[in-house]
């Protein structure tokens, strides 16, 4: 009995701040997996702060005032799932060169790292403008059949 008590001495669920710090370092898929562990973890991963960290992890600190905007537009989780994730994955695959083409060699060596970071920052900003356009579309309008599809180009094509 005493041994069991010794084993259970440290339970991560009792230390939520540590848990949050750990979860902050996960990627989106792992966060999804973590959400399935138990109710506590599920509620923590739903916390938008985690997703904010995920969105802007690789870039320099985002401009101030971003948070209010993003929260108003649906939250960081939405921003990540709808915009940031496809944008970053497409940009990573695209290897943007300086000649304005979609493919082509990026920098070499240390340059590519800088290029990647530069593109990630721009990518994050572009995600935000895309989210804005999407929200604008969803505000409802005159056209009855206007489903918000300005972000359709970010969706993966489905093959039947």
């Amino acid at each position, binding site marked *: 009995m005493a041994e069991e008590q010794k084993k259970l001495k440290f339970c991560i669920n009792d230390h939520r701040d540590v848990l949050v710090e750990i979860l902050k370092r996960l990627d989106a898929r792992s966060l999804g997996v973590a959400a399935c562990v138990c109710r506590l973890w599920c509620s923590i991963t739903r916390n938008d702060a985690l997703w904010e960290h995920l969105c802007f992890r690789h870039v320099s600190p985002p401009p101030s*005032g971003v948070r209010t*905007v993003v929260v108003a537009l649906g939250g960081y989780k939405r921003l990540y799932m709808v915009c940031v994730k496809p944008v970053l994955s497409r940009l990573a695959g695209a290897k*943007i060169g300086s000649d304005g083409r979609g493919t082509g060699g990026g920098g070499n060596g240390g340059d590519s790292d800088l290029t990647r970071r530069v593109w990630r920052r721009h990518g994050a900003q572009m995600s935000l403008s895309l989210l804005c356009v999407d*929200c*604008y579309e969803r505000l409802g309008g005159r056209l009855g059949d206007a489903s918000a599809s300005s972000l*359709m180009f970010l969706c993966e094509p489905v093959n039947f």
Partner: protein
Amino acid sequence: MNRAYEETARNHQLAGGEGYSYEGRMWEEGRGDGGMDELLAVLGYKVKSSDMADVAQKIEQLEMAMGTVQDDGISHLSCDTIHYNPSDISRWLESMLSELNPSQTFDPNGSFSSIQSTVLGQQPQSSIVSSTVPSRIYEDDSEYDLRVIPGIAACKSADSTSDLQIEGSCKRMKRDSCQISTFPVNSAATAGSVPETTRPLVLVDSQEAGVRLVHALIACAKAVQNDNLQFADALLKQIGLLAVSQAGAMRKVATYFAEALARRIYDIYPQKSSIDPSLSDVLQMHFYETCPCLKFGHVTANQAIMEAFAGSPRVHVIDFSIKQGMQWPALVQALAWRPGGPPAFRLTGIGPRQPDNIDALQQVGWKLAQLADTIGVEFHYRGFVYESLADLEPSVLDIRPSAEETVAVNSVFELHRLLARPGSIEKVLSTVKALRPKIVTIIEQEANHNGPVFLDRFNEALHYYSTMFDSLEGCGLTQPNSQALAMSEVYLGRQICNVVACEGTERVERHETLTQWRARMDSSGFDPVHLGSNAFKQASMLLALFPGCDGYRVEENDGCLMLGWHSRPLISTSAWRLAAG
């Protein structure tokens, strides 16, 4: 061939000239007379040595035919055809070739084949009938009865000699010709008798039909220009049938151009009043979604406007083409994050009257106000309904002094419409100058569809819209045949119709090239503003987001940015300010 040779040589050595039973029989046969080629005889084929060159040529032709035919076009060769005496390679090749190319081997009347061979004799195989050749054929038939058309795609099946009906696509033609298994070899001799052509075979080739289609379209336009309407009408039927044989973008472009030509010939100009502005808005929305062209324009123009607005506490944007206002959410968001806080943002939207008293402009303003409120940007909106920008007076727009407010003017695909009425563009540009804007952003199609000669306009439009449709198809953005893609095509189709079928004030799609706009803006008192590298980077990144769109290119052209598909520019963005002094 080499291996067969080695094998036979080995067998010869091993068997001492007698060989095994199977090969020996062949060998003896080969050694015997009949003039059979020895090597092929070993493999079991009977080919006369004298025919070798001919057989080799036919093998090559068959390979070409099989390589170029459409997907399931040759499956019937394996199931349905009956091959007689396949060891006789010459005849077998003949039968295969006849099934792939019916017109080559049928010869109901000597006149047809002689016309065909003379036509082929006169021109190299890859060239297409020029407009002079059809007139040679038609000169003795005043009703332009298209009985004889050189080439495959318009050829009648072997069974009907007087029937002009062409049974749909080439594939069906091939199936019908299955019944004709072997044809007399002398037809090859007939074709071969034309001394100039080494390749008398005109293959069923969708690529070639495509080239013929383009030439037919241009010939029809030329006929229309020369007021030769009967001939043009006859060509239209041709075009319709050729278009059906194509697939994808080429077919759609050809169909739209054919329809536009038909409208021009029969004087069915679509009335301006019937063009529903709400419908054109919907179409442009779908075009916005499927093609990066509009998005490119918005992104680059917004960047230029942002740079011009740097440091101003109050900003005012006048949009000559507010439509659904898709350009402005991104600008509102970018303004919200301006270091130093967002300015007060005023937007004036100008658009045409909508039917049913629906106030589309107000709807746009309301949505943008909601968005701006969410984001935290002070926002004011006014909408003005004008049928033509030339009716706009600067005093209406309530312009504040420059010290108080920075003004930007934005026009997406609107200025070219003013060229339909003389004097309009000058009036509008002077109105713009009276607004004292800090920056004027102009997004226009990069093509010259406003030349004085109809045929030149037609050619230009054909190339431009072919590239556009190719880019829509090649982008791989949406599933083929999805609704958004179809609507985008209708959007482009209406432009095609206007460029080709309309004249005078009805022809509003008077696109001009960047060079022409530059000259006009220069002479009207504007100086160019160079779009910076930020705009370029953003545009490149936007293109990178589109899946599989390697074909798109962003190019910088003396301070302006152009979006092109492969080497053909499609859209250009330019920025201007008032000339100093």
